[in-house]
């Protein structure tokens, strides 16, 4: 008679470890090590150009220098203006479009696909594209302005205009993201609730503000968090559109990090600024995580 020998089965623990190990290794080398290295640099006076020179430990000097620099505070304010403007406009537009996309009409799916396209482009390409369109002499934006009886604007040469130019480009690119998530959120609401609201005598507005919006809130908040973090870090569009100009008036905080690290090669200072940015973003995320936890407890 044949007997069947079976290999001793691996324990769950070993299988678990085996599957997780590659991912953990990548995380270790790509995220955890660089993070601690960054943290370490932020306490040093150090430049990677002069890595032979032994770095000097300066404690919190880098942080102190940065946080007392009025120019940097201006950059924070400018970044804040950009974030608030672009994210607000993107949400108002995105939710409105998603609202109308809920209705059934011919060509809706096609329109939806077309609307999603800007989001799929590379940000630097979008930046250069808009830079040509905003050209004050022969750009299509100014052409359209004159067609409608307006005056030509110096879009990229005046600080306030340049801010709006980037806000417009960012909105063009990222409103689709809000549309996408808002549509998903709206579609996730059970139709029975709308029927109940219909029977309860709710008008379209009442229905939207009392049912659709509150019930989509969790997904919309995640979209908001992602958009806030993303626009807070916005670098590519400014780089391609304004190059931080005129002067350094449209430099965002990320722009300053990049310039400090790779133009001036003040590695220690740039690291400290990156850590500050990271803390702000983590702080933002925590607020949202709190909110989402509170929501899930209700359900």
């Amino acid at each position, binding site marked *: 008679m044949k007997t069947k020998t079976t290999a001793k089965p691996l324990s769950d623990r070993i299988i678990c470890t085996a599957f997780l190990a590659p991912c953990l290794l990548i995380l270790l080398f790509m995220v955890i090590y660089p993070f601690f290295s960054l943290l370490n640099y932020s306490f040093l006076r150090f430049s990677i150009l002069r890595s032979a020179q032994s770095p000097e430990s300066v404690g919190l000097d880098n942080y102190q220098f940065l946080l007392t620099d009025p120019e940097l505070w201006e950059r924070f304010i400018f970044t804040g203006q950009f974030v608030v403007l672009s994210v607000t406009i993107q949400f108002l537009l995105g939710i409105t479009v998603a609202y109308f996309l809920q209705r059934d009409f011919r060509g809706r799916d096609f329109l939806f696909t077309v609307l999603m396209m800007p989001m799929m482009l590379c940000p630097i390409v979008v930046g250069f594209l808009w830079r040509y369109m905003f050209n004050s002499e022969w750009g299509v934006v100014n052409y359209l302005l004159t067609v409608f009886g307006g005056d030509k604007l110096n879009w990229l040469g005046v600080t306030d205009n340049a801010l709006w130019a980037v806000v417009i480009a960012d909105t063009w690119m990222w409103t689709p993201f809000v549309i996408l998530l808002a549509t998903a959120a709206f579609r996730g609401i*059970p139709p*029975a*609730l709308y*029927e*109940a*609201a*219909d*029977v*309860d*005598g*709710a*008008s379209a507005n*009442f229905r939207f503000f*009392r*049912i659709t919006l*509150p*019930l989509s*809130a969790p997904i919309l908040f995640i979209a908001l968090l992602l958009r806030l973090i993303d626009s807070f870090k916005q670098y590519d569009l400014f780089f391609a559109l304004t190059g931080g100009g005129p002067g350094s008036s449209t430099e965002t905080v990320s722009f300053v990090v990049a310039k400090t690290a790779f133009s001036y090669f003040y590695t220690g200072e740039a690291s400290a600024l990156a850590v500050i940015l990271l803390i702000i973003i983590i702080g933002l995320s925590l607020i949202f995580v709190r909110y989402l936890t509170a929501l899930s407890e*209700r*359900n």
Partner: protein
Amino acid sequence: MAEVKLRDLSVRFSDFIAVDGIDLDIADGEMVVFLGPSGCGKTTTLRCIAGLQAPTGGQILFNGERVNEQHPIESNIAMVFQFIALYPHLRVKDNICFPLKARGMPRQDIARKLEWISELFRLEDILNRFPASLPPGARQKVALARAVVREPNVLLLDEPLSAIDEQFREEMRWELGHLQKQLGFTTVYVTHDQREAMSLADRIVLMRDGKIVQVGTPRQMYEDPANDFAGFFIGSPGMYFIDISVKNERLLLGAEGTQLTVGPRLLQTLTGLGDRPLKLGIRPQHITLTTHTAGHNGSGVLTAPIVDRYSIGREHYFDFQLDDKVYQGQSQSGTHMSGHNPDEAICFDLRQLRFFDRNTGECLELRSEED
């Protein structure tokens, strides 16, 4: 309050006819229960009355006024859904006040209504809870409170108890019936559960394939089914049907022709029907056991093999076989339960016999009233 009339109401979804020309009058304050198997068109009819589904033909009249094209807001209808459609992000009190706020009722009136309804439904303790934290029974009670709070013209209930646990359902059913009588709303209730229908309805509307099979009080439906479908669907278990034929002045059951002894007048009536294929209908509780020697006034007697006897508490049952089918009967006392007795016979209560046309299923107007 309102009386509701349906006139030749039809709903067609591309090539499927969900509701096929229904006529019905619902009186003010009446509780009408639409009963039928799933897909029979009862919920579609309800959704038409609610204004959630546009009829493709016919009319819906509220107090004589056509409401086909009216939005639910205008006709002041309240509805309770099968899948408890409470707003999950609102507390119980806000759920209940939702329809009042939607209509822009002043705040102090809303507060007064909330107090009235929460007392009526005994919801005081859960007003500040979210629906997800409540058991299904309590949730449906909140949904009902939300429907009733604005005192609708017509209250529509779409299988409101089907999502509730068995043990709580009974209680809710009682409460529902009680409240309906107390408040006096015209109520249309949809269910596939004939027990719910029998216990709640002033009148039952039995539907099948988009058509009304029969309309009547629960008692009428039970005692005088319009056809074999009604006989089978109402009552649990439903009516038994056995093919019959009359030969040589004898009433024979089934293919094998087991004789059921009946009086000469019934035999004469049946013979008078000629060659029309017939079947008899009888409910299990009208089949009993007796002995040949005992008198059986008003009973038809039958001899058939008894295949099983069992008792559930104080109720005694037996199974007997005709052709290759097994039928259940009830024994009034436990005396016949011990085992086979050569003298025993199966009795059909002749007053409860109904006769149906085997082809159309229609119930014939002939009774065995003789002793």
